[in-house]
């Protein structure tokens, strides 16, 4: 995309299940699809280990040998760079103490999570990505609400990771998701207040915030100085109240319809009945001279190639951005 904003695309929509999106040929086809629709930068998804040939650093290196060789693989399929890397330390991974469960809220887990972050930070730096995007807390249904003093624990943890990232020349952005224990606008502000703005930024996800009951444009206007990363996608639904607290919300809410037969939460830009003011957010980003990446996503949405095309169409025809 030829624009003053920098556009990338999230590969998470292809990596929607453990045992798919494994062969290099599958990666090539996805990358070529992105190139043909005007996206020449990608965000790498989080992963668990085996079969994450385009997600987990150690598995990528097992496949390609070096970060430079991996970048060459991307370039040979038309994608020129990695904008960012996503990491969810609350999702178990082989390389993280063999699928250990650790919680960012637990002070006793902080050292381990910082240690886990090292290879992720190093890889993010090695592939020239600007941002490491992390899930800062567990899902709300997994425990009691965060007490005010626990934000200090989260803040200290992410400051430590942010310091390591900064030393490697990488930014750290805390990503909001609609299931997180950090749920309301006040929760997010409390988390941001607990972190050092020099070391930790915020990854604003338009659909996730909207589902969580937060207006992404208003939030951006209020916190533009902390937003260092953007995920752009749409939704047609908001959490009706406490749905994010449903036991097993990843399944019962996001896949199980939240008891009200919602078959799908995330949608492409320009979807009919979309709740996100995409154009409004893009205008606001321009007005604030936003310098970070805008990563278009369409996770859990359907055929990845079809959704990329619709998102590309929206950028070209609704936002007036030239493809190349």
């Amino acid at each position, binding site marked *: 995309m030829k624009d003053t904003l920098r556009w990338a695309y999230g590969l998470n929509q292809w990596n929607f299940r453990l045992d798919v999106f494994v062969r290099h*040929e599958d990666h090539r*086809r*996805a990358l*070529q*699809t992105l*190139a*043909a*629709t*005007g996206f020449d930068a990608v965000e790498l998804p989080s992963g668990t280990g085996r079969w994450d040939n385009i997600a987990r650093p150690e598995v990528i290196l097992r496949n390609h040998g070096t970060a430079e060789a991996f970048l060459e693989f991307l370039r040979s*399929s*038309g994608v020129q760079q990695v904008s960012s890397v996503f990491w969810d330390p609350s999702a178990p991974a082989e390389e993280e103490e063999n699928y250990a469960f650790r919680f960012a809220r637990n002070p006793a887990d902080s050292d381990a999570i910082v240690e886990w972050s090292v290879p992720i930070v190093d890889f993010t730096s090695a592939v020239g990505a600007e941002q490491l995007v992390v899930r800062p807390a567990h899902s709300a249904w997994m425990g009691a609400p965060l007490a005010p003093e626990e934000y200090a624990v989260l803040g200290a943890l992410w400051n430590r990771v942010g310091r390591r990232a900064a030393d490697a020349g990488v930014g750290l952005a805390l990503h909001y998701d609609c299931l997180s224990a950090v749920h309301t606008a006040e929760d997010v502000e409390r988390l941001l207040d607990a972190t050092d703005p020099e070391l930790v930024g915020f990854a604003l996800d338009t659909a996730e915030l909207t589902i969580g009951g937060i207006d992404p444009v208003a939030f951006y206007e209020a916190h533009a100085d902390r937003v260092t990363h953007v995920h752009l996608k749409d939704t047609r639904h908001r959490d009706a109240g406490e749905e994010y607290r449903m036991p097993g919300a990843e399944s019962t809410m996001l896949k199980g319809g939240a008891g009200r037969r919602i078959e799908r939460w995330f949608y492409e830009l320009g979807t*009919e009945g979309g709740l996100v003011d995409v154009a409004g957010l893009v205008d606001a980003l321009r007005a604030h001279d936003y310098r970070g990446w805008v990563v278009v996503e369409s996770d859990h949405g*359907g*055929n*990845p*190639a*079809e959704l*990329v*095309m*619709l998102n*590309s*169409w929206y950028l*070209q*025809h609704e936002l007036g951005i030239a*493809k190349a």
Partner: protein
Amino acid sequence: MTWRKWSYMDHWVTETPQGPQPPSFNRAYMDRYIKQLSSLGFTGFDTFFFYLPVYAGMYGSVKRFEEHLQDNGFEKITGIFSAYPSATRWAAPHVRETHDRIVADSESIMRMIEGLSVENFIVMPTSTHWQTEPVTDETIKVVADLWNRVGRMTLQHGIRTTCHFEFWGAIRTREQLETFFEYTDPELVFAFIDTAQHTIAGVDPVQLFREVRDRVTGFHFKDTHDVDRQEQYRTPPDPELQAPYTQRWFYEMGTEGGLVDFPALMREIVASGYDGWLTVEHDKAELGGGSYAEATAVAKHYIDTVLAEAERAARGEATR
């Protein structure tokens, strides 16, 4: 300058609440499909004659459908495809007694696109080989007579009749093609080169283009992994989906192991001065779990990279 006139042949399957369906499933799916093609940069749209009433119903008229395409970045409907793949007692190009019916059908299609600037009326010149054989000189003469009649009629509507040969059709070899072009009037009947179909039949599409350049009005760019060496083209009732040794014949450009030399064809096209539409076609792309959307994007990436380079090279050679 890279080639601007890329069109897309209207095969596509997408997931709907009622299973995998063509986008003509309903208006919302159709609108999405048009946006998807537009996002890749296609500006021409080729479709089948049987979709014309469907789109007319969906958008108000064929003209309104074309306007919708234009609102989404397309230039126009570029070609209409018509065929009699199965010979019946009512319509079979090799049976002279059915020609009036075929001419009437073709005229009816012309009326459906009256007022548009469609360039090509693309026809399969024959039905299946197994229904037509033995294919004699006289068989080809009868078929040629039909398309001379149809060609004369469509030109009166400003549209060229152009022949798209199948690997399983009755006119498939170099000799049969030569005979057909000899028996048809070059002013009335044109050629449409499908790269995969000819390759499967053992005919080099680049060489064929060289030989019939003056009559070529279009192409289907698609690839194949197989030349039919076992007479699978004679498989009744349908060699495309029931061939005994080949599950899937057609692949998108860029497929590993593809047999068509697209860069060579592109260089030849540029050198020849051809300036018509080039059409991407994916036929049965869903076989083996494929996706039409991804196949189309991969093909467009191939166009934007490999073919753009071939084109640049050819233009450089042409100016030296």
